[in-house]
């Protein structure tokens, strides 16, 4: 048997939290822009490693945020689908 055995509302909340988490990560990622770059020590020995480090982690955070967001949307969509199914079933029983 596939699927989740969890309340649709809980599933939707998990999705929202994941989406929120992704948003926070995106903010951190944006905050890193300019951490190196022009604002530098003027010492290549330090500036280059920092810029390189920030660049690497920025790209990684992009991917991680995307993963998180995607999972969140999938979970939210699953929650909504289950909720809709519940609603449909309930409606059918009412008839």
């Amino acid at each position, binding site marked *: 048997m596939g699927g989740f055995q969890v309340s649709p509302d809980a599933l939707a909340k998990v999705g929202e939290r*994941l989406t929120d988490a992704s948003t926070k990560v995106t903010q951190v990622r944006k905050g890193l822009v300019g951490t190196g770059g022009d604002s530098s020590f003027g010492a290549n020995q330090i500036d280059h490693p920092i810029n390189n*480090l920030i660049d690497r982690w920025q790209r990684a955070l992009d991917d991680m945020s995307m993963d998180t967001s995607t999972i969140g949307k999938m979970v939210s969509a699953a929650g909504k689908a289950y909720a809709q199914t519940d609603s449909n079933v309930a409606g059918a029983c009412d008839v």
Partner: protein
Amino acid sequence: MDAASVIQRAVDFALRQFPSMDDMVGLTGVDVSDGHYYKGLGFNPVGANPKAMNGLEERTAQQAQTLSDVASLIKLLGDPDPSTWEGEGAKAFVDRVKVLPPEYADAAAALRALGPLVTEARQAITAGKTRAKELDDQAWQARTRIMHEVAEAAKPKGLLDTVVSTVVPVASIIGIALDPGVARAVHHFVDLLEQGVKLHFSTKVQLDHIGQRISKLDDKVPEQKKSGVASIPGVGSLTDLLADGSDLLDAGMNPLAKWMIDRFPAEAHWIAQEMGDVSTILGMVGLFADGTIVGLPVGLVLGAGSVLLSGGQIAIDQRIYRTGAVDATGKPVLTQDEMAQEYGEFALGLVTMGTGKFAGKAFGPAGEVLNEFIGPTVDKGDEVRPGDPKTYRPKIILVDPTLDYAEDKGWTGGDEKVPELRVRRDPALCYPPDSGSGSTGPTTPPPNVVPLPPATGQPNIDGNPYTGPPGGYPQPLANTA
């Protein structure tokens, strides 16, 4: 010791310490971080600006905390809880989510670790600047000392007019033996210059070490999320390695090249040419291999071989080129065009390594590398444009108010192409006024010169009792002879 040997020593030292252009860039007399003018040393040994990264530590710490919070949140969501999460879909969800918290935790740890390293760098720079200013003060006193020593030595001998009119530029005084007191004073000043240059390089080494530790903070970037040529298997952080081409040569090839030239002085250029030829062949075969079914691995290996050989060739020939060696007919052994050609062959190896699957990602960094690489190699014989950091080679300038009347004599700077130790007169610092030149400088010591003559009976710098004018002498310096 005569002036010639002292000046020659300074020139030799400067040339030895500044083998590449990028070492010179930034060594100007003004510190942009606080506006301090290094009028004693004539250059700022520690050019970095610790204020430029204010707040970085706090900012990255906050970002790290946010990522830690995100990691904790997702970990809670992903923890399998039989009462909440059941079924295959839940398992798939948990499997996918559970990899995220460690990744976020790694990112948080990296950002958290960056702060203290930035602090360490800031402290190293600040300490270096403090020391630089101490040296600058001492150098300023030493300059003044030279001035007085020259005045003292020249007056009784009637040499002052001769010295003043002859010492333009400094090279022209080679051959004139100065008073031992003058020589010692100049010697001491050159020692201070040396200390300034050493401070520059020791700070650079310190920052290098910190930079290496910062570089390691990306070790845990998820592999599939790394980008660029750094992810080529077996090559490691190629981007880092090549980002500063001169480092590659300095670290690996220059010692080899030096040994080669020392061991085979007559054959070194020929050997370099052979290395270049083989490098080209490897590069071309590698390019072909990149397009075949064997593809990347063979091309990568051949490209790497090409890069190494080409790098060796450049390291050897660059040394020869810098000496300005000529052949029996008087033609240069190596011209700038030929050096450029060698860099082109080096590029071929890089391109070979970067083609195939990684072409798009490798070309960009390779281009940047080449720009970095070719830029600093402007050398003797090339056009040098003051103000252009790629080509301008700042000079160490001795500002001595007594010695040099070059500007008065119409000297316009002479040859701008090589680093030189020159003496330049600054009228504002001309104390005491020199009767021989007609200068009208101040008749009292500049405010930042502390006239502390040796007490009566105390030894002068040359060990003899001081006999100079009272109040006109700076603090006695240690006998550096």
